[in-house]
């Protein structure tokens, strides 16, 4: 009997210590009020604590460029700042937000915005930016959630058409044959298809296929991501067009060519044309330096020109003790000088219109990418849309044999569920 009592006592003691440990954990977290709606600069927190800048870096070039820019700012402002290159950005951000001690400034992707914005982790500082009106409006829309402009677009990329010069010539094509319509694209893709390579090789996913939806006048969601438009006739038309290319063998998806992405299929000579964004220049330079290619605007579809754009922004944490300094840093990092320096170092295009001319003259071969800014659409940003897009990607891979309407109907249903 006695033994049993002591056992219960011990269990009680364990439970009690467990609860103690739990409450100790709890007190370690900061219970700050939710960070929604900073409307004036005076509402921002300010202190002399150092800033942490968490970036999802593509490599040393990017890390060093950001480090140099941040160091410059530190010297001018007198506030210490350190750059950390994340190994898994989303995971490290999540851990920071949960512990109440997040990085102050960080890269944030369009599909992660809604998740962090909805739980109040982000400071919606967009309207406080001095250079707010200089950003491309479509980029601003990508970082607007619930009517609030959350964070400054860091840079952007658009999709355009890359053509392998040697294969183009071998097929007897000239500059005049660069496709400007879907029909012309079908024609050159067919001509470029030989037993060694296909005419067009792209990744079989929304982030490439979506450009054709935009050219047909559609997209998975409307511009504000407030309405699902996946099953529109325009999207059906786009997928049906691609299906016809797949069926006559002039288009194949990268995975079916044994390549990880369109750039790899293009670089290894398995495809004469591909559709990729600004990042392909760096990828080809490092992995396939011998390949000779040119970049052109994508052909116009039934609804005119269209492409997709991809962008990240500089997020600021609602729990940052030094938001004022963070805002100042972001304004500097999005200035024309810094963005042009970043562009030289690692690729993407400046997110502000005032840097466009300077960028074009520095990168004459890449001008088509920038031209896309005028007609590009963003990817869906509704909370959970990344999952739906992943689901769509899984199905579109077998577009050659599937019914486009069925694929789009399933996506429509999933998107509608997100909007509740």
């Amino acid at each position, binding site marked *: *009997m*006695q033994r049993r009592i*002591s056992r219960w006592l*011990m269990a009680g003691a*364990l439970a009690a*210590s*467990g609860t103690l*440990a*739990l*409450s100790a*954990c*709890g007190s*370690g*977290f*900061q*219970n*700050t009020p*939710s960070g929604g709606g900073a409307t004036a600069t005076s509402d921002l927190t300010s202190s002399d604590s150092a800033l942490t800048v968490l970036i999802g870096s593509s490599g040393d070039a990017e890390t060093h460029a950001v480090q140099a820019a941040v160091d410059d700012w530190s010297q001018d402002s007198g506030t210490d700042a350190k750059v950390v290159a994340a190994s898994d950005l*989303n*995971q490290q951000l*999540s851990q920071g*937000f*949960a512990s*109440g001690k997040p990085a102050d400034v960080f890269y944030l992707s369009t599909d*992660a915005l809604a*998740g*962090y914005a*909805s*739980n*109040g*982790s982000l400071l919606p500082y967009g309207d406080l930016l001095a250079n707010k009106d200089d950003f491309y409006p479509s980029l601003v829309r990508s970082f607007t959630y619930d009517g609030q402009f959350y964070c400054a677009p860091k840079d952007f990329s658009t999709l355009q058409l890359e053509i392998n010069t040697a294969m183009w010539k071998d097929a007897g094509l000239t500059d005049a044959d660069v496709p400007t319509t879907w029909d012309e694209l079908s024609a050159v893709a067919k001509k470029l298809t030989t037993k060694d390579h296909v005419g067009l090789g792209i990744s079989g996913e929304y982030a490439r296929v979506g450009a054709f939806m935009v050219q047909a006048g559609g997209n998975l969601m409307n511009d504000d991501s407030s309405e699902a438009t996946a099953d529109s006739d325009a999207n059906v038309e786009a997928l049906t067009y691609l299906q016809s290319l797949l069926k006559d063998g002039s288009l194949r998806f990268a*995975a*079916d*060519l*044994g390549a990880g992405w369109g750039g790899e299929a293009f670089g290894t000579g398995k495809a004469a044309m591909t559709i990729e964004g600004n990042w392909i220049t760096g990828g080809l330079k490092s992995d396939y330096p011998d390949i000779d290619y040119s970049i052109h605007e994508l052909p116009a579809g039934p609804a005119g020109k269209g492409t997709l754009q991809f962008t990240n922004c500089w997020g600021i944490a*609602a*729990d940052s003790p030094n938001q004022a300094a963070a805002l100042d840093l972001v304004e500097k990092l999005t200035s024309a000088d810094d963005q042009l320096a970043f562009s030289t170092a690692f690729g993407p295009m400046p997110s502000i219109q005032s840097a466009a001319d300077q960028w074009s003259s520095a990168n004459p071969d890449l001008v088509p990418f920038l031209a896309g800014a005028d007609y590009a659409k963003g990817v869906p940003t509704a*909370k*959970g849309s*990344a*999952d*739906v897009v*992943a*689901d769509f990607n*899984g*199905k579109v*891979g*077998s577009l050659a*044999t599937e019914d486009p309407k069925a694929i789009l109907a399933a996506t429509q249903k*999933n998107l509608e*569920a997100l909007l509740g």
Partner: protein
Amino acid sequence: MTTTTERPLRDGGHRGLRRGEAASGWLFTAPMLVLLGLFLVVPVLMALWVSLSDWGGRGSPFSGGVGFVGLKNYAAVLLGGGLAEQDFGMSLKNNAWYVVLVVPIQTALSLFLAVLVNRQILRGRGFFRTAFYFPSVTSSVAITVLFLFLFSTTGAINAVLGAIGINGPNWVNDPHGIFHFGASSGPAWLESATVLDIPLWDWIGGPSVAMCIYIVMAIFTTSGTFMLLFLAALQNLGGDVQEAAMVDGANGWQRFWRVTLPQLRPTLFTVLTLGLIGCWQIFDQIYTGTRGQPAKTTITPAYLSYTSSFQDQDWGQGAAIAFILFVIIVIFTLFQRWVLRDRRVSRRRMRMYEAAATRGSAR
């Protein structure tokens, strides 16, 4: 009555030489208890709370703004009808096939290997033991990458197949279930009936070609570990029972099935349980490898739990999936314990033995 007579004895024990032994026992185990509590019990309780709350990932899950939502997260995953349920159904389907194929094969293979390297007459036993155990001590990340290379369209497997005139499939990107045998759609009644929003036709389709790579890989890597367990158990078996069986005229095959294997039952239970738990928790291979692709045929509950928490900020659902997985593992373990329980010898077998015994005595 008996308790009253026993109790003075016991209490006497406490008063005498062994007094305070319990206290020191607790004292010595305290560091481990504290560590286990802090790093195991507390996080589990926290996760349980998160699975029942609407915590969004910011600040403490115990702060004021976080509300109790009951079983809402579990309902979204099990009955929601949306993408969350579909994904969970898909991950269960993938993982169930993985378990069904990996656990029996790896157990049988490891037992087979253990019996082989246990034989006294085998030359270079040390070499074979090391060779079979080697995949187990190699990092799973390295092996995953290696396997993806092997099975890529231009990889070694397809090169070998090409040499004998077979055009190898695009292994890693093939989402077709292997038991569909190439059929793209099934009979209407299988397509329309769904469990967890996944058509029965897909459930019976088996793992995708891509998932089969992971299945082969799991068998390859874990068989060595379990071989070691079986080997240890085999070496613990006394030779006398074997000799007795030999005297009774049992041949090698009979000795293995009737004498050796029953004695290995505790080890068999350990191996099956460890295999089962490990298989249901598969995560790192998926994370470093295909990340759910192609067409979600390699998502597993553990990976789904990670993505819904860290990528979608649906922490409640992520935690709920983890607990559902926990329940599944417990149920499977209990079931398997029931199957492997110590049974009385069945009547049929008893008759067989009796018949043998009477034959023996008659002789």
